């Protein structure tokens, strides 16, 4: 049954001459799980907002065409922080029901059911601002579930979350779709994690729907049109000219099993990157205890060498941020020694924390002024290196997410630090922007900079880091070459490694996989 139909929809945001959506024709059937993909700025979020009429009712603007919805649509947004309005979890879940004017008895039941379905009884009485990001997003979903909507639109609900919390949210969506038959439209960047959930994929480009069809066909479309939007497993097989392309690790391994055997696994011969012997950061027996008594770091030892790109991974709350604060000198160790031989530049998770000046140029100049550096020619040089010179006189707040990040990075690079710390730099970035960031990291590495990358993104680490350090409960669980650390685990590893593990060992990236199976034109 068709529950939403959009015909010839063209939409302009207020005071914009270019349409955000152009000639959209779309019909959504009840119980479908639709994955809405596209690059940043392609119009996905705007289309998502059309379903529950936030566009145009809330945003205004010009609209042409018809939107016919048979049911009410619930919406969950990207940033869980900005969705929650009430003080306490239970009241937050009831908030939407209060707005709908439901009687108390019905509200009680719906709140109870939402709490039970999402298994969040334990946080029922907690304050919303005390929750973790994942818990906040669960509460936001719970509040929408409680409102009784059977059609959900979710705009990148996992982009601000760590992988564990993101998996939990995607699992909830799967249950809503499979157990309750809810219709889901999911806008997402983590294609590897959610592609297999979809019944249908919509791909947007310049405000238009460029692809509408089954996930299998989308893999072909993505490959043929060089879009790079397929899961890495599928990407590997399609490059191997396989007709039936698997979407999951399970399906992929089934195909590989025919060719390879677990009994005689062959190791992939990889090349270890050469790392200099010169230490730039030397940490010995570092312990750090916060004022509230929380022991964040426990006798941690770490050496960072000049010119290397070191990836630091680990659970939230495991001590990564405290380690970074110690390295950058924001806090002093409770015990132990931290020797940092060169100047440190630090880029935090949120680029908005850096941007307050009227132009990009002023933003970079501010850092120079604070550091008393008179050489203003550095600004243009950095802007050119980061390919944002053409935004020199623009307000940095008017730029897109990836551009803002580059301006924030520029405001650090202008100090010409020899050590650069990047905290979760890939959060919220699409594949293209990640590749761009990767290129910047490689360029900096080639200039001899030492880079510490703190991230949950195993794929990114495997591509751009030489060594990886896993931090667990305030101590180092493992440190070494990425080919060792990321290939003998089950969680801190890449999709490609999961696919080949046991058949060909030490494979991390798609390039590794293609190289290792070069002779096998067809698998």
């Amino acid at each position, binding site marked *: 049954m068709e529950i939403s139909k959009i015909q010839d929809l063209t939409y302009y945001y207020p005071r914009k001459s270019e349409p955000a959506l152009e000639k959209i024709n779309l019909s959504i059937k009840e119980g479908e799980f639709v994955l809405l993909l596209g690059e940043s700025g392609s119009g996905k979020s705007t289309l998502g907002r059309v379903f*529950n009429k*936030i566009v145009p*009712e*809330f945003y205004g603007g010009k609209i042409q065409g018809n939107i016919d919805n048979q049911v009410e649509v*619930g*919406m969950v*947004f990207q*940033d869980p*922080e*900005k*969705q*929650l*309005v*009430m*003080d*306490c979890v*239970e*009241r937050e879940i*009831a*908030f*939407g*029901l*209060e*707005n*709908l*004017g*439901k*009687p*108390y008895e019905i*509200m009680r039941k719906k*709140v109870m059911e939402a709490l039970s379905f999402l298994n969040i009884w334990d946080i029922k009485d907690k304050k*919303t*601002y005390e929750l973790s990001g994942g818990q906040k997003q669960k509460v936001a979903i719970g*509040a*929408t579930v409680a*409102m009784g909507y059977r059609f959900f639109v979710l705009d990148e609900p996992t982009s601000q979350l760590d992988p564990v919390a993101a998996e939990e949210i995607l699992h909830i969506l799967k249950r809503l779709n499979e157990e309750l038959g809810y219709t889901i439209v999911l806008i997402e960047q983590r294609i590897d994690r959610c592609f297999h959930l979809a019944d249908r994929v919509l791909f947007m480009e310049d405000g238009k729907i460029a692809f509408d069809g089954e996930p299998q066909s989308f893999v072909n479309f993505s490959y043929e049109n060089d879009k790079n939007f397929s899961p890495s497993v599928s990407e590997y097989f399609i490059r191997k000219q396989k007709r039936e392309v698997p979407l999951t690790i399970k399906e992929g391994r089934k195909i590989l099993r025919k060719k390879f055997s677990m009994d005689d696994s062959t190791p992939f011969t990889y090349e270890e990157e050469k790392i200099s012997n010169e230490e730039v950061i030397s940490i010995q027996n570092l312990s750090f205890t916060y004022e509230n008594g929380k022991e964040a770091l426990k006798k941690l030892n770490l050496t960072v060498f000049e010119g290397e790109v070191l990836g630091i991974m680990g659970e939230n709350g495991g001590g990564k941020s405290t380690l970074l*604060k110690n390295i*950058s000198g*924001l806090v002093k160790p409770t015990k132990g020694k931290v020797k940092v031989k060169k100047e*440190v*530049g*630090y880029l*935090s998770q*949120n680029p*908005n*924390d*850096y*941007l*307050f000046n009227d132009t990009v140029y002023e933003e970079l100049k*501010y*850092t120079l002024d*604070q*550091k*008393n550096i008179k050489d203003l020619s550095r600004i243009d040089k950095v802007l050119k290196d980061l390919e944002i010179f053409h935004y020199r006189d623009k307000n940095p*707040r008017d730029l897109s997410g990836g551009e803002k990040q580059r301006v924030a990075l520029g*405001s*650090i690079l202008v*100090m010409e630090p020899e050590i650069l710390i990047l905290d979760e730099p890939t959060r919220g970035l699409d594949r293209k922007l990640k590749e761009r960031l990767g290129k910047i990291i490689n360029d900096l590495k080639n200039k001899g900079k030492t880079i510490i990358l703190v991230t949950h993104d195993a794929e990114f680490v495997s591509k751009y880091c030489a060594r990886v350090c896993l931090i667990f409960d305030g101590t180092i669980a493992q440190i070494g070459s990425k080919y060792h650390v990321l290939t003998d685990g089950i969680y801190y590893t890449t999709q490609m490694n999961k696919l080949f593990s046991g058949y060909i060992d030490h494979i991390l990236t798609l390039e590794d996989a293609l190289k290792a199976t070069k002779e096998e034109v067809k698998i």
Partner: protein
Amino acid sequence: MKFHPLTMILFSITLLFMTLVYSHPVYIGSILLFMIMSICTLGEGKKIISSVKYGIYGAILIIIVNPLVYHEGRMVIYEGIRLPIIGRFKITLEALAYGGNSALKLICILLIFAFYGVMTDRDDTFSFFSKYAHKLTLTLSMTINMIHRLKLEVLRVKDVMILRGVNFKEKKIIKRVKAYYPILKVIFISSLEGSLDRAESLYSRGYGKYIRTSYSKLEMKGRDYLFLSLNTIVLAVFIYGLLSEKGLVLFYPTFTGFHIENLLFVIWIDVALFSCVLLLWGCMRWKFLKYKI
């Protein structure tokens, strides 16, 4: 162990009236003592310090300023030169006592708010008010959420600015204010941008589209009725005392609060107030009051 917001609103109003109307320091002292005992009985002694911490400066200021600007009173304890505007510099014991009494009242009022906070649950108060003032309670709730977020944001942005070379430990106050300016600007811009997201979220959750209902169903319990009964007794004693002019004194030209009748009547007030403390103590210790009613 929390009480219904209505119970505590009524009781706090009674206490507030008593504090404002009484002028006898012994009466004010009794109310202050009652509040300190009540808060301590509930095991929240630390709240007294945190509530009075900032008020104490105001109280000291009142004690200093009143005798400086008001020169009435017979007991002159210091007389000096004539000053412009203020006139002859003169400090009287009565003016000092009046300032002290006013300071005591200020501390009392602050503790009434702390007492209300200790005795009720914040969500219950929101629920109670949301029945009658949706928008106000929603604004308050969002403000509380926001303040918490802003606190974290300020710390985060400050770290970022330190690493960009900003010195927040400048000795000159102008330079220090200048150093904090970017933090304020970042927070301000982020808050403005965030407000649109919040408004969008509210809209998508149906806010303002229908006539709102309230999720809360607060019930008055047995101990609320008991407390309200004691409140009625306190109020009755207070009104009776007022009608017979108890607890009211003059400070100028000389203090008139030494009449024995006036001093004895405070015992009734104390008995009424301390029966409330007894009930609170009972609610904390006695299972019947704590769980059954």
